Each structure stands twice: as C-alpha cells, then as structure tokens.
C-alpha cells in the first residue's frame, strides 16, 4: 500500500489495475471522462494489460461489458449523467443476466439544460434496475469501494452489478491522498472471477437469455430481488475482511458519526456527508445533540440500519441532492417508508438542494439541521419538504 495524490477519476482508473479488471468499455462524458482517458493511458503505457474498448456510445459501453462478463471476464465502465441514462436498458439487462459488472458513475445533472455539475438524479433514477448502489465521500473511499464492489458483485450469493457513485467535480476533479494497493496485494482479497453458473464457452454450451414463460419469469425476478437484499449482509463481511487485510473501513451501509446519543440526525448521500461531519461538530459545540448518518448504500436499502437509527432519535433531516419529480426526495421517501412499520416513528423532514452543483457548505447543512431541531423542539413537523435556498 502506498499513498498517492490523485483525483477520484484517476484513482478509479488505478482501481482497474489493482482489481485486475480484464475488460473496460467506456465512452467520454464530463465529468467521468478522465476515467477512460486514464484507463487508455495506463493501457497504452503497458501498466494495465486488459482490453480497452473505445465504444461509440454508452449503450454500447454497457453492452460490451455485458458481452465480456458473459464470457467470464471481469468488466468495468465509467460514465455520468446522460451517459448513464442512455445505458438504462443495458443496466436492466446486466442485473437480470446476473452479471457482476462494476460501474463508476460520476454524478452529474441531466439535461436539458446542459449542466455538468453534481445532482444525483442520474443514478437515483436507475434505482429500480436492480444495481447495487454506493455513494462515497472521498477519493480514498471511491478507490477502495470499487475494489470491494467486484468482490461483492462476484459473490455467489449476489451475482449482481454494482454502481459506485462519486460527486462530479467535488470528487471527480479534486485531488486528495488515497492509499493505492498493488494488484499483488489485492489478490489476497479478490480472486480471479470464476462464473459459478454459466459462461459463453463452446466446451460447455448454454444459451442465455432465452424466452421464459409467465410460469417462471416471476421466480427469476424474485431470486434477483433476494440476491440484492443479501448484499447488505455480504457487504458487512467484505468490509470486515478488508479492514483486517488493509486497515480500511468506511462504515458499512451507513457511516454514522456522533449518532449514538443524537436526538436529531442528518442523512445525505455522497460528498456532502463529509461536510456534514463538520456541521455536526460545530453544532455539538453549540450544545445540540445531533449526528450525521451518511448513507453509503442506497440499493439494497439498509432497512434495518435505518430502523435502528430511527428508533433512537426524535428527528431525521433527510437531505437529497436530487428529486423524484412529482413526489419528493428519493432517500427521504425511502426513510419515511421504512419507518412506517415501526413502534417509534421519529419526525422526518425532507430537504432538497445542492442541485446542478450548487454548493452545500457547512453553513447550509447547519441551517438544515437547525430547522429540524426547531421542529423537534416545537413538536410541529411543519413543511414535509423544503427546498434549501430556493430562489423566488
């Protein structure tokens, strides 16, 4: 392990080396572009000797990964925003085919209008594709979560693709230190991918993706659903092993900070969760019992963890950097629905903001948390949904 200084995208390309990825197929799109650029560079320099396919669209990128993974190769791609949206059909395909492809998504707003900065709508709108989804808060976490993602995806109890999300520019283009692992070190953790059930192989011919009649379609879908839910438990195992081997632990599905005795917790996804630690520290100093729960895993949704947290607090300020238009914040809605069938239901308020890359500073986060504190103190929930700093 050696400490390097790089942006999240450069580090993601190094994760391709570390994890001995065999096939990368990718297409440029800001702010993910430097991932395929770096993969190309490492490839041409002979530092990473896999196959790099310079495809003509993101739809082709994901289908090339599907072809590669179906033929037994470890496959990876990176994209963002409209690129991810164009992959939508392929995303569904990869899950239902149970292929352990890993995708680094750099969260960016979707068009129109053109905006290259962070909003989580791109990945959140892939919620129902069955992909396992992580959101990270640092370059180091991005790099290591990509490596872990292969282990999780390839686990026989899972066999599903994994998307690791990082905020556009905030992480993708921001240089931070991270701990690089040589492929030889990662070998201890991540054995070569060996498809347990089927692969394209003339020695053992199978045909995959054939017609399934109504009598069985539902059963396939149920298996996929259950496998997805297994990921919560399997990921905990993986994080423990990773911690033992490399001394890295990122908090499991939810990274909790000062939550133990908190009366109000702030939840968010992505880089804001790092900022929120500072907000919580400052508020603690000012005498408020508040905590920060950074939601790392969005799919499968950490139901039990949320319930455990929710059972101990009076209020949850659930922040979304995206919107399910016509309903509300993606994660806030999930948290509400998870808490419904419990005995203790804390006050839950949904906050939406930071769209299109608008900065969410410590000060902004403190405002949100204090609004929640006020609601708890007064006993009045008030607005169920608040758009932070919305211009008139």
């Amino acid at each position: 392990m050696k400490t390097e200084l790089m942006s999240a995208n450069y580090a993601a390309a190094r994760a391709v080396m570390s994890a001995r990825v065999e096939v990368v197929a990718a297409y440029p799109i800001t702010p993910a572009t430097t991932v395929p650029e770096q993969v190309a560079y490492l490839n041409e320099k002979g530092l990473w000797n896999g196959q790099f396919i310079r495809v003509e669209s993101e739809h082709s990128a994901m289908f090339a990964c599907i072809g590669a993974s179906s033929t037994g190769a470890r496959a990876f791609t990176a994209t963002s925003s409209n690129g991810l949206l164009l992959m939508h059909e392929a995303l569904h395909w990869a899950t239902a085919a149970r292929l352990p492809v890993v995708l680094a998504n750099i969260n960016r707003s979707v068009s129109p209008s053109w905006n290259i900065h962070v909003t989580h709508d791109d990945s959140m709108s892939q919620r129902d594709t069955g992909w396992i989804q992580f959101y990270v808060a640092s370059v180091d976490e991005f790099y290591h979560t990509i490596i872990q993602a292969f282990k999780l995806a390839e686990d026989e109890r899972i066999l599903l693709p994994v998307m690791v999300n990082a905020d556009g520019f905030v992480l993708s283009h921001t240089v931070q230190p991270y701990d690089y692992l040589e492929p030889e070190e990662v070998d201890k953790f991540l054995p070569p991918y060996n498809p347990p059930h089927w692969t394209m192989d003339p020695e053992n011919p199978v045909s995959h993706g054939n017609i399934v009649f109504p009598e069985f379609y539902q059963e396939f879908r149920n298996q996929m659903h259950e496998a997805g839910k297994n990921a919560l438990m399997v990921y905990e195992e993986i994080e423990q092993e990773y911690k033992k081997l490399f001394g890295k632990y990122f908090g499991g599905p939810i990274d909790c900070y000062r939550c133990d005795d908190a009366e109000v917790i702030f939840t968010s996804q992505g880089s804001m969760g790092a900022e929120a630690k500072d907000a919580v520290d400052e508020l603690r100093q000012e005498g408020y019992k508040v905590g920060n729960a950074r939601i790392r895993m969005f799919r499968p949704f950490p139901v039990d963890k949320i319930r455990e947290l929710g059972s101990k607090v009076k209020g949850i300020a659930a922040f979304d950097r995206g919107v399910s238009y016509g309903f509300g914040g993606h994660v806030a809605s999930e948290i509400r629905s998870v808490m419904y069938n419990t005995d203790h239901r804390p006050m839950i308020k949904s906050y939406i903001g930071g769209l299109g890359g608008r900065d969410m500073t410590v000060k902004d986060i403190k405002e949100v948390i204090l609004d929640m504190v006020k609601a708890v103190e007064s006993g009045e929930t008030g607005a169920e949904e608040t758009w932070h700093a919305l211009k008139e």
Partner: protein
Amino acid sequence: MVATKDMPLKEYVLKGNAACAGCQDMVALRHAHKALEGDVIQVVPACCTSVVQSLWPKSGLGIPVLNTAFMAAAATASGVRAALKAKGRDHTTVMVWAGDGGTFDIGLQALSGAFERRTDFLYVCYNNQVYSNTGTQRSGATPLHAATTTTWFGKTEPEKMLDLIVAAHEPAYQATANTSYPRDLYDKVKRAKEIEGPKFLHIFLPCPQAWNYPVEKGVEIGKLAVETGYWIQWERIGDEFKLGRESKRFQDPEKRKPIEEFLKLQGRFSHLFKPTKDEKKIQELQDYVQHRWDVIMRTFT
C-alpha cells in the same frame, strides 16, 4: 461562386459567444446562416456548438436553436420537420448542426433512420475529427496516428469513411466543404436549401484546441488538407457527382503537396516528427490520401 460582397450583411452568429479564439466552427456556422437567412430551425446535439452558443438566458445565435441529446439529432429534426408539415410551414429549413462524434459515432443510427425515411432536412456534420467538447477524445473521424486523450500515442485505426455510408442512403444532396473555402460552403448551403429531401453537408474544420496549433493557422491548415489531397471537395446532386474546383487539381498525385506539410503544423501529429521522424507512419498517412481518392472516385464516378 458567390462574391463576398454579395453575401447578406446580417449576422446570425452573434458577438460574444463562448467559442475559442480561432474556432473554425464559427466560420462554418456564420456562412451557413448567411445562406439560410434566418428561415431555419437548428437542431444541435451535445458538441462544442451546444456550449459556445452561450449561457442561459442569453443566446449566441440569432435563430431558433433546439438542443437535443447526443445520439438524437436526426430523430429530433424528424420531429421538427413533421410538426412544420402538420402546421403547413414548408418553407422553413430544418438543419442539424452536429459534430463528428454526434454523427460518425453515437448519432449514426438516428441519421440513418431519418435519411431512409427521406426526411426533408439538411444534416450538417462539422468535422473537427475529435470529441472537442469533452477535451479531445478520439472519434470515428479521428485520423490514423492522431494523438488524443484516449489514444495517447496515436490512433491505431484510420477514420471511418462516413460519406460512403451516407451515400448508401442515396440522399437528395450530398457535399463536402471546408472552412478555408467559406464562399464555397455558402453556395453549398444555399443549393441544399432549394432541394427537397435528405441532404448531407460534411464540413472539414480544424480545431486549434484539439489539434494543437497556433490559433491563426486554421485557414492555412484547412487549405493544406485540400492541397495535400487529404480532404476532397466534392458535391453530389442526386447521383450526379462533381469534383470541387479546389480539389480538381489535386486529383493528380504529382500536383499534391506531401502530407507532411499538413501534419507537421499540428501538435496531435508531433510524435511523428519528434524525437525522430517516423517515416513509416507518415507514409501510412500519405498512402491513405490516395486510398481515399481511389475509393471516392471508384464509388461516385
């Protein structure tokens, strides 16, 4: 050919847009719009043009512009044309203005569909041979050996001969142009405007940012592309093929300047000259020049 003084004085490409200094795309757009004189709806997929036409709420173009998704320009234009038909507004030109990435690569399927349906529109591909918007990645139009940020040590495949694919759709009008010859470009757009059916204009344009040359050299490099025979100016009305007068002379290989003259001005080819001259790769590009002439003449004449 139109005399410069006879072109309309009105400007549709407005001052203060966000294009790089020396951007040849602006030269192309400027002359195309002078030829169309404002009766046009322009459809633009993701590309440099979608950026340089300026930030909301301003616009750098004095015509209606419909931005669309990267792969969808020709499909979007089909819808615009259908709506105009539904409303009985047949005189308005529907024009796609797309980069090479949006045409050769991700937008090819939509282009093919619209041409096969014989959509009445003008599809302009401005070809700077690279994805400039996203910072110089290779496209299907990037020439052999050009360095990009996804082909750091030079592309290993030659460019796609898109004109042949388009020709297979038997368009009503098809032409190539080059921003170093803006009057010719103007004439071609004007001609296209008068013809009904699917029309394709393929404009070669140097990009100082991606090709890495001093901004004032754009016209010189564009001319060298023709004088070395690398870029061929031609026009095809129905299946009547006409070699452009700028290119006629260079049909004879003896009259062509060596490809080196075109290459050596551009940073993207500098590895062919430094630290040592790579004669073999330069020769491969030289051979490609004749290859394109052979294919074009064999196909169209």
